[in-house]
């Protein structure tokens, strides 16, 4: 039997007219702000925040020149990850992930950030050093005037030979690949000097804020990934949740990254599209919990509420 002011079955649809208590909302907010400010300041002083230095293309070219050359050759002959990526970067037939069957939002949206990998990462940047290097200029001219099939043969041949060629420092093995070794040797030198970092960001405009080309080029190589794996940031290492060093990361992304660890997603070429579709559905479900039968009844089945409101229930059940 309910006690006055403490109904056992209060109606949530009507304004509360039962027992009330004193409440100071402004004081509560001020106390919370002061407490959280102090706690945050303490955490910041104790633990600081991570700031791992970014990888530059110069660093990549110095520390992993063979990987740099292999990547540049693949961009030139159109076999790199980016060159075969598909939308939004390249028009590669059939490329792009499917959510289910042949349905691909990636292909539906199409190419919106077009990148010609040979031009963007090799031919256009070389316009800088050729101004002062007649030999390199001649090599570039020879390449540009050759038929497409010949260009492809040179670039692909050189890319294949890199796997069997010892490359160290600035010297690049040459042999039957036309002007490509000269060109990529020039590109390597340009990269090591830092000029390629700048070239991949610059456009015809003065001010720059877009690092798309530089980052895509870095990501096409293995060096960036090597640095990431040392910090346990790879997808296979639940990387989405992690942070560099021993800092806490993004624990709230646990469900997003969990799918990547389990079959069939862990070995699927369409993992990204499938997982994002699943998470879109689950996120929508989170938002719409009040309308989902079963899920909205869980609070009644798992009666944590009896603990939360134990004091109220005790008063409501006590004799007047």
């Amino acid at each position, binding site marked *: 039997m309910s006690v006055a*002011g403490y109904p056992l079955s209060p109606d949530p649809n009507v304004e509360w007219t039962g*027992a*009330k*208590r*004193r409440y100071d909302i402004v004081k509560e907010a001020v106390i919370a702000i002061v407490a959280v400010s102090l706690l945050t300041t303490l955490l*910041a*002083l*104790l*633990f*600081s925040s*991570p*700031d791992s230095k970014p990888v530059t293309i110069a660093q990549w070219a110095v520390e992993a020149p063979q990987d740099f050359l292999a990547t540049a050759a693949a961009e030139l002959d159109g076999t790199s990850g980016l060159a075969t990526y598909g939308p939004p970067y390249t028009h590669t037939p059939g490329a792009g992930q499917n959510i289910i069957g042949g349905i691909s939002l990636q292909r539906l949206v199409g190419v919106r950030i077009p990148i010609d990998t040979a031009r963007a990462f090799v031919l256009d940047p070389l316009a800088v050093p050729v101004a002062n290097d007649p030999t390199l200029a001649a090599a570039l001219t020879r390449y540009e005037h050759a038929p497409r099939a010949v260009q492809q043969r040179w670039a692909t041949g050189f890319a294949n030979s890199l796997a069997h060629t010892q490359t160290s420092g600035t010297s690049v093995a040459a042999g039957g690949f036309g002007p490509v070794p000269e060109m990529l040797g020039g590109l390597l030198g340009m990269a090591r000097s830092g000029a390629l970092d700048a070239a991949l960001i610059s456009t015809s405009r003065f001010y720059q804020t877009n690092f798309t080309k530089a980052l895509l080029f870095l990501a096409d190589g293995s060096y960036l990934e090597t640095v990431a794996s040392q*910090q*346990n940031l790879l997808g296979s*290492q*639940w990387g989405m*949740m*992690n*942070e*560099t*060093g*021993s*800092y*806490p*990361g993004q*624990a709230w992304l646990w469900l997003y990254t969990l799918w990547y*660890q*389990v079959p069939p997603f862990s070995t699927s070429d369409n993992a990204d599209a499938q997982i994002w579709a699943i998470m879109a559905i689950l996120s929508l479900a989170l938002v719409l919990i009040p309308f989902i039968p079963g899920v909205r009844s869980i609070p009644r089945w798992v009666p*944590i509420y009896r*603990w*939360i409101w134990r*004091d109220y229930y005790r008063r409501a059940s006590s004799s007047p």
Partner: protein
Amino acid sequence: MFGLLLSVFSLDGRPRYIHTGWFLISVANLVVVLVMLALFALAIALPFPHGGKDE
């Protein structure tokens, strides 16, 4: 002179992970999750003071 990092405990060192089967979590993230669960449990379990007479 002060370094760039004003930190008493440096968290820039080698990260530690707990790895069982396909499950992998950093110690830092695990601590955060455990603290959150503890906060939730304590928030429910700890008695709330009654500051004034109920009207």
